[in-house]
């Protein structure tokens, strides 16, 4: 489902990846670890094609970085759910509207949007907060809104960039429990983290970024 073929990514004359190869299958739960600044976020950005490889190719679903056009990128992103470390909520609209936005971009009908958003908010435990503005939410609540938004289009892949990085242990546990549930339903979860204690508690494939390449940690 996800393939990296000889990927090289260079920024400011410095290689982030060099001849990097990787395959991730459907439904996997993958932790991506590595030192701060090693390229975990760049790896995720290559997946949602916010940046393109300098050399080589990234394939995700039916999309290929070497052939994708600017107009196709939004359609790729609709098949992926993305949870950002800094939440990236739309600050000028409430919780319901934030989650609904991801459905509006697909042209979904009003009734479908309402029912799906209510279901997702219930799943992440935010039914009572649908009219709250992002500024009125705690970090954990914001992250749960971001997760609801990422899941509302039933993505085949969920990307999460340090989703527990800004959260206390209890909130982190809640978020990971949600990820587990999603993964059991067949969605591949790829989570960049530097919190190694998580790996001990939860099973999953661990990929380490080191020396501009990917290494499976056994």
């Amino acid at each position, binding site marked *: 489902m996800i393939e990296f073929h000889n990927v090289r*990514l260079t*920024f400011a004359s410095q290689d*982030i990846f060099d001849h990097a190869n990787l395959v991730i299958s459907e439904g996997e739960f993958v932790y991506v670890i590595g030192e701060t600044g090693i390229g975990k976020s*760049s790896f995720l*950005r290559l997946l*949602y*094609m*916010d*940046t*393109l490889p300098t050399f080589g190719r990234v394939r995700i679903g039916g999309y290929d970085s070497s052939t994708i056009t*600017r*107009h196709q*990128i*939004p*359609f790729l*992103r*609709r098949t992926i759910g*993305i949870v*950002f470390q800094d939440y*990236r*909520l*739309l*600050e*000028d*609209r409430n919780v319901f509207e934030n989650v609904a*936005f*991801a459905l*509006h*971009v*697909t*042209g979904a*009908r*009003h009734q479908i949007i309402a029912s799906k958003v209510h279901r997702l908010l219930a799943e992440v435990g935010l039914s009572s907060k649908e009219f709250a503005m992002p500024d009125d939410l705690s970090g954990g609540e914001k992250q749960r809104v971001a997760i609801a*938004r990422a899941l509302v*289009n039933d993505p085949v892949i969920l990307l999460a960039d340090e989703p527990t990085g800004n959260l206390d242990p209890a909130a982190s546990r809640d978020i990971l429990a949600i990820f587990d549930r999603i993964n059991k339903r067949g969605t591949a979860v790829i989570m960049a983290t530097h919190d190694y204690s998580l790996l001990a508690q939860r099973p999953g494939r661990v990929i380490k970024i080191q020396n501009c390449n990917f290494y499976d940690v056994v």
Partner: protein
Amino acid sequence: MSVSYTLKESFAGFRRNRSASLITVFTVSISLLLLGVFVIITMNFATFVDQIRSRVDLEVFLSSEMSESQQEGMTRILSNIPGVEEVSFISKEDAAKIFKQDFGESFDDILDDNPLPQSYRLSIQEGYNNADSVQIIAARVEKLQMVESVHYRKQLLQLIDRRARAFGYAAGFIGMILALSAIILVANTIRLTIYAKRHIIRTMKLVGATSMLIRLPFLIEGAFHGIIGGVIASLLIDIVFTFFIQPLSEDLLVNIGVSFGFYIGLIIAGGVLGFIGSVISIGRFLKEALVQHV
């Protein structure tokens, strides 16, 4: 992409960013107010010039007295000359009366006979009342039999033509600068409001929104701001004209007016201005490179 969602988002923008929306509306209003006042001055100057032109008549003096049938024939010939609007015959007696009105004296007191010739007064159609056209008409009339001479205020017409031409160039130039300034001013104001939303725009792109889905609500919102700005500018101009300019125009016996169509035009101009401003501004944020900085 749902039309109702796009429209809803466009109007929700007004509610979400009240202060930015008010600043945009205010900027559009001021820009249109300046532009509107300039257009009114230009239009009224043109009307004023036309009024002066319409007062320029041709006086055709005859060499000998005409019979009634000859007068009718001459009237017909003169009426058929392109550019001639109205032909009026002035008999020797009428000429004497006019002389008495103008100079306060009668010939009867000095002379035994009325020395004034029969004449015609020709008024000129709109579009022909410029120096060149009137000169052509005068030349054709002069060639007619029994015409002694043709008189009109040639120098005044030439002066009006020169001044009107210079005013037209100046007005066009200033109008262009004003229109350009209005576009730049409005575009920059809108750009600032969109700049404040750049993180939101980026997030929208990351969750799969197409450029069109992001762009359209901004464009409609911009046009909406412009229309409101146009309405405010129209109201301000109408208030100023109703209470200050029109009483003055009655005093000066000059016809200064603003038509309803002008206000409609100003409101449409506001919408177009807001739309163009948004097109210019949003484009910059959406054209960001596909390959981002790492």
